[in-house]
């Protein structure tokens, strides 16, 4: 006879799995951050971690979309704020990293190159983040509309 799994235990397993995933992801981010900024490791040395992080994020997004759970429950203006803050963060981190590696060069050029690099960094991260956020936002909205339509049909049945 197959033993039925206790629903409380099942719920607890799910909770623990979620916590473990959060901890692992946090370690992954710290690991990438540490390798890229505090040590002078090559990009290739943490590319697998980066792929893992991207893969897991993509998996979460796809699962949410397939299940029909609303990924983005905020208005468009908040999305723009999110893109802006993410770009600022990426620029700040990239700026610190760039300065620690090439500070003597920047000092020689009276920091004009440094500001230029920061500008390019912000612009490119803003465009990239914008494309990703907008893409997820559009797909998510389309999926929600599909579900609403299906629910409307069922409701009026």
């Amino acid at each position, binding site marked *: 006879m197959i033993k039925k799994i206790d629903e409380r235990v099942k719920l607890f397993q799910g909770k623990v799995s979620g916590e473990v995933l959060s901890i692992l992801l946090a370690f992954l981010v710290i690991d990438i951050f540490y390798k890229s900024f505090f040590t002078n490791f090559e990009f290739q040395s943490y590319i697998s971690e980066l792929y893992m992080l991207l893969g897991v994020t993509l998996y979460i997004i796809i699962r949410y979309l397939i299940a*029909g*759970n*609303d990924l983005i429950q905020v208005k468009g203006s908040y999305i723009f704020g999110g893109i802006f803050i993410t770009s600022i963060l990426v620029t700040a981190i990239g700026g610190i990293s760039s300065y620690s590696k090439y500070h003597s060069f920047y000092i020689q050029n009276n920091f004009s190159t440094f500001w230029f690099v920061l500008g390019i960094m912000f612009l490119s991260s803003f465009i990239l983040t914008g494309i990703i956020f907008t893409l997820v936002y559009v797909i998510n909205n389309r999926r929600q509309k599909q*579900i*609403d339509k299906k*629910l409307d049909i*069922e*409701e009026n049945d």
Partner: protein
Amino acid sequence: MKNKKMKIARLEKDLNQNDLASIVGVTRQTIGLIESGDYNPSLNLCIAICKALDRTLDELFWGNDND
């Protein structure tokens, strides 16, 4: 198994799925899934739905005439 009793009770209260969802604090999708029998709600959610629809647990979630 579809939960027609819940759907009828909701319609009698003149509520759509969105209204009921916001009263009990879930998404419309969750209400839709409960009514279509594709999701088993927790006891707390069942109680919240019963309170919102002025019905008892027996009336909405028990019995053989759920088809």
